[in-house]
């Protein structure tokens, strides 16, 4: 008998599985579960975008694309990015089409991080940065963002964490799970700390099209002097409801993109061809779709924030993505207990904040990527739950 534990990389075995999973097994057993846990759009990819994918299949375009992605797509990505975020990238050398934003994050971290390098990771944040850093031999340095700062990274927190070994800063905004957004003034303050260092920045802007309020998303590469140190990660999943197409991209300095392209070439070869044809249409003619979806999310966001505040589960106003991150301490429960009991007693699934870092304790992630009917029903069940638990405490 092979002892597999000795045959496999101990670093891989030591990785902790994502904590989002925990409650779904319970949820799957129940009939009438209302979930507010899913992190993807409830919209279906707009028809005209799907149609371009279908057309490419009908035309028999079923071969590999160039490693970096079709030139036409890269050109359209760069045009889209310029049109929306006002930074020019060179499609030939500064753009890489990847299998979702996730692959771009992976290859960017592996490309930049050497063993012993410190990677600054603000948390709560998406679950992949820490394990990917560890696999590259890097040392994750967790920056715990605070509710009182709207879960933004502050320049003081950043400055305090920088050492001579700091190689890379992850900027995960608009943020999953908190919905926090870094506006231009916040990014300027971060840039002031970085200017004069050679710390690189991975700016994960996958939710860039889902920013609410009067001002739209600002890419970190638009901040003076930051373009040269920034790899922008973005993709089609959130802006165009294209999660299943698995398509993202990285924009950055030519020399970095060139090295990332090698990892992509050997590990992936090229992103799915059918998805790239659909994506060209999204870039060219999808602006109004993004705007429509943003408007719908925005209404749901206001509905759910108001609903939670009414229940006494205060949440700061999330300005981006499609999550709220309410504080549940008033129930006297931990995040884990809250989620477990909520699903057992009221059959509503949400994700404990601790799945996104230890500092998520006392919070839960609630997705509003659901219909209004679904959200109002969930709110009324959560209301019932909170009433019971507040009564318990008295």
């Amino acid at each position, binding site marked *: 008998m092979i002892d597999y534990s000795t045959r496999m990389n101990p670093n891989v075995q030591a990785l902790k599985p994502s904590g989002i999973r925990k409650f779904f097994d319970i949820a799957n057993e129940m009939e009438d579960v209302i979930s507010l846990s899913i992190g993807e759009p409830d919209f279906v990819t707009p028809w005209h975008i799907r149609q371009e994918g279908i057309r490419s299949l009908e035309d028999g375009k079923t071969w590999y694309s160039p490693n970096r992605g079709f030139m036409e797509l890269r050109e359209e990505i760069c045009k889209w990015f310029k049109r929306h975020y006002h930074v020019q990238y060179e499609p030939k050398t500064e753009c890489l089409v990847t299998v979702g934003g996730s692959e771009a994050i992976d290859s960017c971290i592996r490309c930049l991080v050497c063993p012993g390098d410190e990677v600054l990771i603000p948390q709560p944040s998406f679950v992949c940065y820490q394990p990917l850093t560890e696999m590259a031999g890097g040392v994750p340095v967790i920056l715990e963002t605070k509710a009182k700062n709207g879960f933004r990274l502050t320049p003081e927190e950043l400055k305090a964490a920088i050492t001579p070994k700091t190689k890379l800063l992850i900027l995960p905004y608009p943020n999953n799970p908190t919905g926090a957004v870094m506006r231009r003034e916040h990014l300027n303050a971060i840039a002031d700390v970085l200017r004069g260092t050679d710390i690189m920045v991975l700016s994960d802007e996958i939710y860039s099209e889902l920013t609410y309020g009067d001002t739209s998303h600002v890419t970190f590469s638009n901040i003076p002097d930051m373009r040269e140190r920034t790899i922008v990660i973005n993709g089609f999943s959130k802006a165009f409801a294209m999660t299943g197409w698995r398509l993202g991209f990285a924009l950055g300095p030519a020399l970095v993109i060139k090295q990332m392209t090698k990892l992509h070439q050997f590990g992936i070869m090229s992103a799915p061809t059918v998805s790239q044809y659909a994506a060209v249409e999204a870039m060219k003619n999808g602006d109004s779709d993004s705007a429509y979806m943003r408007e719908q999310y925005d209404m749901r966001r206001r509905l759910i924030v108001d609903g939670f505040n009414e229940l006494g589960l205060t949440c700061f106003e999330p300005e981006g993505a499609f999550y709220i991150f309410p504080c549940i301490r008033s129930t006297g429960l931990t995040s884990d207990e809250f989620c477990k009991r909520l699903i057992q007693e009221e059959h509503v699934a949400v994700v404990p904040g601790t799945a996104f870092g230890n500092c998520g304790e006392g919070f839960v992630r609630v997705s509003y990527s659901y219909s209004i009917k679904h959200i*109002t029903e969930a709110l009324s069940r959560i209301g019932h739950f909170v009433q019971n638990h507040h009564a318990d405490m008295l």
Partner: protein
Amino acid sequence: MDQLLTLLSENARLTTRQLAAMLNETEENVKNAIVKYEEDGVIRGYKAIINWEKVDVNNAIAIIELRVSPKRERGFDEIASKIMKLPEVDSVYLVSGGYDLAVIIHGSSMQEIAMFVMRRLSTMDSVLSTTTHFILTRYKADGIIMNAAEEKDGRRDLSCD
């Protein structure tokens, strides 16, 4: 406040507070707008959309095509006005094409509807002919898919998202 109408047309049970939150308006403004819409006859009522097939009651629905001869001066209005006052009648539409009025009728059985058409509709003066189509299955009505199972969320809970 057009968005208010859209929201109400999709779900009339949202509270004023919820509507106000979604529209970024005060509750007062939303309340006043609704009253105004009601007074102006823009909002004509609120009702539930029911899948009668799930309820153990006898229910039949038919779409009746009516060919009628229009009256001088009043056109189709006179006959339409007579028909729409009958309580069995759910909807009356003047339509283009091969016939003039489309009338939707609810009854407790096909028999009852057939009798109604025979005795009440076809006997009216200006009615030239009727064609009755009984509804066999309602897949979707008023924008709502009747079988809730068909509306299932196709997304899966993932460990990473």
